[in-house]
């Protein structure tokens, strides 16, 4: 029984990371109907920036803030410079560009920072919260952070004019343009948000999985599974999916399929969801017009 609680707790902790990564995926999917395969490597690279700042004596929260801002700007720049030119190209061309981007970030991180494993600080140091026996302080902290990020994203879209404009641009670009929304900039903003959220995911993941250039590979796969499960166009759904996948992965690995084929859990979840409920649990059903 104790073991079961431990499995649940570590599933929940990593689930938080999957959830934030899935949320970043949703940001770009909402705006452009594309899945950013480079999301993981971008997040990893952002995390290295934070690590580098802290190596140079910065305080955690300073480094955190600067990294989020830097990633936001970086995301906007990538959209304008690298992604925009392919707006009219076939979907596959964009997929190739994302794969190319992920190669570039991976290699650059190795070039600048080396491939060996680095430890990464957490602001949630010290004793486990409320004296619980199952989750370390960082694990509890990262769950809270993922919920905070979700709340911020929700508030931004719901209560700010900019959020409204972004939603309009995503849902009906033509009409949005007519009422004066600069749709192009909204897409760039979507990328910026995704990169910033991804940076948070990376900084929450790194204390758990340790920082190295390949750190986000497995996480991205589970985030995909989470996003598909919850509905890739729905922020709430993606976060729910991320947590669920984190827990399911641990429980299935430990008690059902065995650790040897644990990665295949992601594959099973993705295929299972798509067969049973293609739009995910909370996604909008898209009805094609004939």
């Amino acid at each position, binding site marked *: 029984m104790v073991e079961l609680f431990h499995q649940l707790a570590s599933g929940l902790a990593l689930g938080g990371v999957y959830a934030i990564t899935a949320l970043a995926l949703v940001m770009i999917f909402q705006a452009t109907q594309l899945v950013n395969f480079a999301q993981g490597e971008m997040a990893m690279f952002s995390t290295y920036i934070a690590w580098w700042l802290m190596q140079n004596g910065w305080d955690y929260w300073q480094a955190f803030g600067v990294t989020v801002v830097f990633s936001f700007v970086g995301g906007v720049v990538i959209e304008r410079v690298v992604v925009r030119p392919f707006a009219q190209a076939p979907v596959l061309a964009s997929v190739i560009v994302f794969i190319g981007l992920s190669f570039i970030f991976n290699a650059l991180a190795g070039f600048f920072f080396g491939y060996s494993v680095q430890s990464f600080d957490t602001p949630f140091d010290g004793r486990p919260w409320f004296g619980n026996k199952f989750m370390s302080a960082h694990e509890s902290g990262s769950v809270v952070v993922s919920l905070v990020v979700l709340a911020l994203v929700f508030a931004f879209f719901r209560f700010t004019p900019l959020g409204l404009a972004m939603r309009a641009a995503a849902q009906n670009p033509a009409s949005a343009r007519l009422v004066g929304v600069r749709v192009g900039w909204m897409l760039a903003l979507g990328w910026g948000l995704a990169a910033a959220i991804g940076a948070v995911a990376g900084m929450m993941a790194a204390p758990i999985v340790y920082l190295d250039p390949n750190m986000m590979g497995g996480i991205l796969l589970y985030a995909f599974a989470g996003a598909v499960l919850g509905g890739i166009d729905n922020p709430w759904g993606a976060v729910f999916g991320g947590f669920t996948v984190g827990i399911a992965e641990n429980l299935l690995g430990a008690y059902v399929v065995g650790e040897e084929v*644990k990665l295949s859990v992601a594959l099973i979840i993705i295929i299972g969801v798509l067969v049973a409920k293609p739009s995910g649990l909370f996604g909008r059903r898209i009805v094609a017009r004939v």
Partner: protein
Amino acid sequence: MMNRRQFLTSAAALAAATQARADDMPGITAKEIKIGQTMPYSGPASAYGVIGKTEAAYFKMINAQGGVNGRMVNFISLDDGYSPPKTVEQTRRLVEEEKVAFLFNPLGTPPNLAIRDYCNKNGVPQLYVATGAATFSDPAHFKWTLGLQPNYQTESGIFGKHILATKPKAKIAVLYQNDGFGKDYLIGLKAGLGADHAGMIVKAASYETSEPTVDSQVTELQGSGADVFLIAATPKFAAQAIRKSFDLGWDATRYVTDVSLSIATVLKPAGLAKAKGLITANYGKDASDPRWKDDAGFKQYKDFVEKHMSARDLVDSNAIYGFNAAILMVHVLKQCGNDLSRANILKQATNIDGLELPMLLPGIKINTSPTNYSPIRQMQLQSFNGSSWELFGDILQG
């Protein structure tokens, strides 16, 4: 006195003889020794790329000091991304196009398995392969292929014997990487325990290098009620397992492998306090261990890294590995003298008697012979006291 005609004839004969010798010595000219290598500079195993980088830097330094017996080392290290088909292609390029004399320290079990037949069929020395898989020390079947570090099974066997001696009633849990590396530890442990005690292993769980963490596996292993925990994992996952087993409050005697004993890249990320009490078997010195601060061998290494590499490489155990391997290689080349034919290179590589290297533990020596293809077979047990490794017991031979 030799007349003109005689002189020309004999000169021609001499030229022909030199020509014949040159044909016998691919990759060798009067000024150069060409050495090939494949290394994962890209892909999932790129952390090991530092090994190739270190060796390249070392050979460059040797060249700056005048080379080996007057010849410059031309070291060609190609990226194979840890993908066996690419290893085959790059190896063929090295052997057939670049015409290297031999291969030195190509990395990885699957890549080396993929080229072993090719090297042995064509008589190309595949020297000091960078993997501890036991299968590479098999002179009876593969005379051109040589291992280097103590093989994984040997090391694991040492753990098995140590467990029997200290905790005869132990219940053992094993975390292993789901590939040749991890499975060799499981095999070796069973062999070390002996058939009668194989039942002591109560649970084994594997992980995949593409997984984010092994937390779930460690939790599962703890649930088995084991009081000994063998962590047969690569650095990142070993660090996770050390931390998680501590956080779980699991009071087991923990063993880690020599692949993951670096203080800087494994124990520090895991938390030094959480790593206290770990046991491992080792053959090399750890650059981040304060114990070696004034050691002559360490100073030599430090001096080399400071002059020829970047500062972050100093504590990287891969750099130490490459440094030792490159020194061994230069030793063999010097021993070859002027006969750098492939046959003689193999002969000298398998004829080393008690060589000590600066970054090997004191007392551990390299020995090879035509029937002994495991250059380093000695190890010493050590335990971690929270800040550095403490050697204990005798030097053990696998």
